[in-house]
């Protein structure tokens, strides 16, 4: 099979692993080498689905001995199978890199023979890049479920990031849809990597990540987010990715969705940001009686409306994490406010000048004791309908399809998700 044909098949099969990051590594170039890693990552292009392309994301092979029900590459699917040689992978990567198409390589694989054999193949391809071509760009490799510690050691010293995908957010779902993968086969390598990262700076220096599939199984947002919170807390996960389920196979155990649940995925990303940067805990946002996010409002605005006694917040006195609780004030705005108010009192005018967006924030703040309007406006029903009206408008303005559906994430949402400005 020609390389071009292999690339078509093996890129196509790899795209459902949504991680696109090339950030987090401080890898420097070496004397006779090529490449370096950019700490904040670099986007080289954007695909027609709006996702950033920063790595060459491919499978070593899409042959697999497992038969996970949701996976396009499951053993029982009748699809065209292909396999790269390690040299072919190294060649494409280095030539794409020289032309500045990519930041580096994301290498995954179906499982051939057994987990360690597969890991060995990944090591071989990446070795050629690191040792023969002196490549110092970014490499993200998948941890194959069930891999031994020896193989993880070997691969971890060659790459910047490793990841192993949980995919199914509960043990029952895992048993139902991916019976070949034991829970421990996923969690043990994860734990091992977490502990080894602590001991060796050069081992998986950009940390590990994981992915959860949203909507293939019945877990609530509460369950999913609690799992993510655990990952960040106990496993030092750098990122959890949420991938809206795209129906690829027909199976009795899989839901027949018409469209992937993109809005739900978007709300989870917004909540994920609240956990990581805004000082929120899952229990602030969801609980047993309120298990799923409000589709009409982002999680932060929703929290604010249910916690009105927290507001209004005085811009000139509130601490950083209190400022972050205000809908419409994100990390950048909060920092600007903290810096500017050291020198003079802030008014609504000065906030506007500093480009703090007041459209939503105005309902929740005072400047030197003054509210933006009469105090009768500080009413959760009134504010709620104003915020929902705005959100609807955003959704209607920004959807790409003629059929406007209320339940589509907006371009603005996506941008704000990435910049963290909520």
């Amino acid at each position, binding site marked *: 099979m020609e*390389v*071009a044909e292999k*690339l*078509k098949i093996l*890129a*196509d099969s790899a*795209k*459902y692993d949504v991680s696109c990051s090339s950030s987090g590594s401080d890898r420097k*170039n070496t004397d*006779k*080498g*090529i*490449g*370096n890693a*950019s700490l904040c990552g*670099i*986007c*080289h*292009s*954007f*695909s*027609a*689905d*709006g*996702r*950033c*392309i*920063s790595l*060459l*994301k491919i499978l070593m092979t899409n042959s697999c001995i497992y038969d996970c029900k949701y996976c396009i590459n499951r053993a029982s699917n009748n699809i065209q199978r292909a396999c790269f040689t390690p040299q072919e992978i190294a060649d*494409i990567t280095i*030539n*794409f890199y*020289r*032309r*500045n*198409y990519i930041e580096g390589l994301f290498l995954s694989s179906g499982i051939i023979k057994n987990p360690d054999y597969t890991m060995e193949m990944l090591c071989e391809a990446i070795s050629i890049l690191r040792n023969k071509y002196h490549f110092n*760009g970014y490499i993200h490799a998948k941890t194959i479920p069930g891999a031994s510690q020896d193989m993880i050691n070997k691969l971890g010293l060659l790459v910047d990031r490793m990841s192993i995908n949980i995919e199914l957010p509960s043990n029952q779902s895992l048993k139902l849809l991916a019976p070949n993968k034991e829970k421990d086969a996923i969690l043990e390598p994860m734990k091992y990597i977490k502990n080894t990262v602590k001991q060796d700076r050069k081992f998986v220096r950009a940390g590990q990540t994981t992915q959860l599939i949203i909507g293939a199984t019945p877990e609530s947002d509460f369950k999913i987010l609690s799992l993510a919170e655990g990952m960040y807390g106990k496993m030092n996960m750098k990122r959890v990715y949420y991938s*809206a389920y*795209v129906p690829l196979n027909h199976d009795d155990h899989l839901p027949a969705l018409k*469209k*992937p649940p*993109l809005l739900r995925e978007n709300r989870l990303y917004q909540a994920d940001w609240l956990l990581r940067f805004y000082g929120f805990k899952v229990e602030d946002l969801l609980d047993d009686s309120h298990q799923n996010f409000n589709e009409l409002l982002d999680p932060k605005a929703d929290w604010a409306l249910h916690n009105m006694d927290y507001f209004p917040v005085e811009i000139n006195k509130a601490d950083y994490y209190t400022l972050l609780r205000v809908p419409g004030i994100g990390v950048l705005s909060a920092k*600007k406010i903290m*810096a*500017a108010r*050291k*020198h*003079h009192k*802030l008014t609504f005018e*000065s906030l506007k*000048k*500093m*480009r703090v967006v007041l459209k939503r924030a105005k309902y929740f703040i005072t400047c030197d004791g003054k509210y933006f309007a009469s105090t009768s406006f500080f009413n959760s029903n009134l504010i709620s309908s104003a915020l929902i009206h705005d959100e609807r408008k955003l959704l209607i303005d*920004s*959807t*790409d399809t003629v059929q406007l559906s209320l339940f589509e994430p907006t*371009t603005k949402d*996506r*941008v704000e998700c990435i910049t963290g400005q909520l």
Partner: protein
Amino acid sequence: MHHWTVIDCTYLYDGSLEGILSVVYTCLKDKQIPNMVIEEENYVGNLFEQPKMISTNLDHSSYILEQIQEKVSDLALYYVYTSFLSSDKKKANALLHYIIYAFKYGFKINQMKSIDCVIEVQRIAKNVKYEAHRFSGFIRFKELENKFLYAEYESDNDILTFLADHFSDRLQQEIWMIHDKTRFQIALYNRDEYIIVDSKTIDLTIIESDQEDYYLQLWKDYFKNITIKERENRRCQRSFMPKKYWKYLPETKG
């Protein structure tokens, strides 16, 4: 600045950073500020205005730079250099006010986020830096038959030095050229250091290597195959990657 006179006059400069700094020097000496500073090339006068051309004096401009370094901060210097690279016609005026305030407040100047000229200069610099960052991803090299790498682009701001710095490290073993077609300048790197020259003085006949088509096609195919059709959202794609960049992004050409 309340003790300074604002005179009803427009100062002009020659378009260089030294030109702007010479204006700053002049204002500091005369203790007066014009109501506008514009690059001479962009000046459109009217019957009532009597513009004044401030000639560029390298001693004056060096002095101002040294003073910023000593009395203000490296960060202020960074803002001055970076916002100068912008194509924003109001940059000179913003810089004039910024530097004068900077001498007044010292290193605190960059925290004073509700002074207009501080906001303006920081905004302009951020804009330049952001474009440089975007282009570090959007630049595409072609391999030429002598194995050199060649890239070309058009940009709003003068980001060539940022790009040259970036690729001097990343592609340090390669010989490459990066051509800024907007400003007719080209950075040339020889595995040791780079220089920037006027592109009109160079013969830019491009002969691609015989591998070039092969890898370009692989990239185009990869780009197409990576889309998840069920998530297609062209508007989102365009908001991250505006059409103005597509001219030099071969993967967008199907």
